[in-house]
């Protein structure tokens, strides 16, 4: 026996590992976002591409700077893909033609204040992308609510590469010419003006709600169908489980169905609710963030339902037309509580943790 042998910890079982890793998970999620993002690029052209790039770079820079400051090896953690995913999720939730500094501030805020100050990956309480989005929405309400109608990149009037850069640098040139409103925002404004949905949505000025996704909004909103498809791929690959998405969709759909049935002039229908705003992006990509969601199945059902209900409540009765980001952040805050009180049943114990009765088990055949 030598002391060196005792001092070094021997390798522990298991000696086999599943071929999975954090970066593989992150990159899989990013990959499922790609189709929706590309579709968004096609719809909104060069300004959207530029903003996306700027946001991503800012998020990565924030992460790298923090890791450097913390004296950690920046490279492996930078390339685990988590900062990339955070930046990406933020980018697809921004107004596509927002100026560059929106993307830069958002990206930096997401990784620096949303994640690294908590201790980095795995320690943040709130979803970094949504923290940044809410920060931007509250700080720059005007820039964050100026939307443009889809103007496919192939269209003659679409800004080219050069114009795209100008839009990125200086903002939208002739605001009223291209600006539009999201369906949720439009509905809310019209309702507040006393025009009910029957009339406002039938008007010619109403933003399109084409099912194919060519609707005003962020990249993630316009491509709701592709986002949902990406989410289904994640489900199939078992990167996420069905609990949070299903619960969140149900949390939005059920109250929407009931309210719409009661008063269609006052409340939007289920399809509009599910395809508008960040509902799909939230259900499949935002709320399912591992770090900030509960880790038991029941807990996830509670969490998802909470996200859905809060989204509906904020959209319908709140001051903002869209509520996914707020709903997710509120439920993030509840995650530790949910995890504390909802725990799986341990084999051989009841839900309260007391051992089972052997006589009852003996009687089973």
């Amino acid at each position, binding site marked *: 026996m030598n002391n060196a042998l005792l001092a070094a910890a021997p390798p*522990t*079982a298991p000696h086999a590992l599943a071929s999975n890793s954090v970066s593989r*998970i992150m990159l899989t999620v990013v990959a499922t976002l790609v189709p929706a993002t590309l579709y968004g690029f096609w719809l909104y052209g060069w300004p959207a591409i530029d903003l996306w790039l700027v946001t991503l770079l800012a998020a990565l820079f924030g992460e790298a700077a923090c890791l450097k400051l913390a004296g950690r090896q920046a490279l492996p953690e930078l390339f685990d893909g988590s900062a990339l995913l955070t930046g990406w999720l933020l980018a697809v939730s921004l107004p596509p033609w927002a100026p560059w500094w929106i993307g830069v501030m958002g990206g930096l805020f997401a990784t620096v204040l949303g994640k690294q100050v908590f201790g980095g990956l795995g320690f943040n309480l709130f979803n970094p992308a949504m923290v940044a989005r809410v920060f931007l929405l509250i700080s720059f309400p005007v820039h964050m609510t100026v939307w443009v109608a889809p103007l496919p990149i192939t269209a003659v009037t679409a800004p080219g590469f050069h114009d795209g850069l100008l839009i990125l640098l200086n903002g939208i040139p002739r605001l009223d010419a291209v600006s539009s409103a999201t369906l949720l925002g439009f509905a809310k404004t019209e309702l507040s003006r006393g025009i009910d949905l029957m009339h406002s949505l039938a008007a010619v000025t109403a933003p399109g709600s084409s099912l194919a996704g060519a609707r005003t909004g962020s990249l993630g909103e316009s491509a709701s169908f592709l986002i949902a498809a990406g989410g289904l791929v994640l489900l199939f690959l078992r990167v996420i489980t069905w609990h949070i998405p299903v619960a969140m969709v149900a949390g939005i759909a059920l109250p929407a169905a009931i309210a719409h049935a009661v008063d269609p002039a006052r409340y939007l229908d289920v399809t509009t609710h599910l395809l508008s705003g960040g509902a799909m992006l939230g259900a499949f990509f935002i709320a399912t963030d591992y770090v900030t969601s509960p880790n038991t199945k029941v807990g996830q059902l509670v969490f998802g339902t909470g996200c859905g209900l809060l989204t509906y409540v904020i959209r319908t009765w709140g001051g903002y037309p869209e509520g996914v980001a707020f709903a997710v952040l509120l439920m993030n805050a509840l995650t530790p509580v949910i995890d504390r009180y909802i725990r799986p049943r341990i084999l*051989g*114990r009841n839900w309260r943790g007391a051992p089972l009765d052997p006589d009852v088990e003996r009687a089973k055949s």
Partner: protein
Amino acid sequence: MGLFEKFLHTLALPRWGVHPDDHKRPAADAPLRLLPLPARLYVPLQQHVGQPGRPIVLVGQKVLKGQLIAEPQGRISAPIHAPTSGIVAAIGEITAPHPSGLPFNAITIESDGDDRAIEARVPSDPFALSPEEITDLVAAAGVVGLGGATFPSSVKLALGKRTRITTLIVNGGECEPYLSCDDRVMRDFAAAVIDGVRIMMHAMGAIEALVGIEDNKPESIAAMRKAAVPFPEIKLRPVPSRYPMGSDRQLIQTLTGKEVPSDCRAADVGVIVNNVSTANAVHRAIRLGEPLIRRIVTINGGAVWQPGNILAPVGTLASDLLAFAGLKSEPARLLMGGPMMGIVLPHAQVPIVKGTAGILALAENEIVMPEASPCIRCGNCTRACPIGLLPLEMAANIRVDNLSGAAALGLSDCISCGCCAYICPSHIPLVQYFTHAKGELWSQERSKLRLDASKRLAADRAERLTRETKEKAAAGARRKAERAAQKAEAATAAAEADSSTETAT
């Protein structure tokens, strides 16, 4: 398999566990080989749970194969027999098959090459014997659970006396990747296993036996089914291949639907689980009078030239087995047991024991061990845990030395199966956290007991000291009183004398 069938198959899987690559073939299909008798055997005194055996032979003494060389000590213990004939060369410390590389005691036997066995008495009909007699024979043969726990089998059999056992579950799960020794036993000795099962059923009074075999071993299932045909009370039950199906509680739940309460043993719900190799050992002990002195060991891994199963005497060095199977390359890691729960061997000069199912010599490409990264709370570990624990929360508690917090989350229920660490995308050494915490809690418990004991001793001493001072004082007082009395007596005597002289004068 069609997509739909695959889907149905997935639905039928238990909702716990993992499915590692099994790596069982081609080793499982290679015919069983017999190891040529090694020149020296190192027979450890501790090959079972409980107290180590106490050697009853002397250095230089001649022993025969099957002769008792160490007797059991205490209630939970097992005797050790000489695996071959020869001379006791030494009794002393050798490196234990343990990751720490610490030594333990063993009897070294220098083989004389004759392999001459001691004469065995064999009962003509085991079913005419009483359960107690069978239990005693099994105890005398040193049979222990060969599934890995190495719990003395006789103690388990005797449970039938204390509580009513209805079902004997025969564990042919062998869910650990790479290992195929149980598979080989079932394929080659199916009749012996079934006979052992019947003897055990007789000993514990069970009315039925369920043989659970993972469905990745169709040859075993076929062989065992054929051997069990004459005995309707023995039922073959293929189970889905899912790690850790071979764990007691999981197999019991899968086969009977019963859940063993966390503070109870399986016997408390009327079930006892025994491994197929144990059944084979019981058969040999009762029918042939052969104590447990050899077993089938799987030699496998990327560094092994001819992977397969080898019948070897207990006490054979792992290096002898590896030399017999041949090494392609220097193994990157040596394991005793499977890759999920097996232990790292400090080197190959350690003996195999009764519970050794396999020696794995893994090549460099089989043990990619990436650096651990932070927990992303993905929850894969909680979904994989067959017990329903929260490995990520427990590890977070242990990391900051909050052992009681981890215990409150159910650390004591953890079976160290390794599913959580296997599935963890961050490669966190979860099992090491748990083994460390369990050991630390146990050693704290022990020092607390020690503290209580010394407190008692100190109190006893204080009491003794006061008693002694009191007794001393009492004795002093008594002596004083005696002296005073003597003085007084002397004084009165003197006075009397005075008065008498006075009167005399």
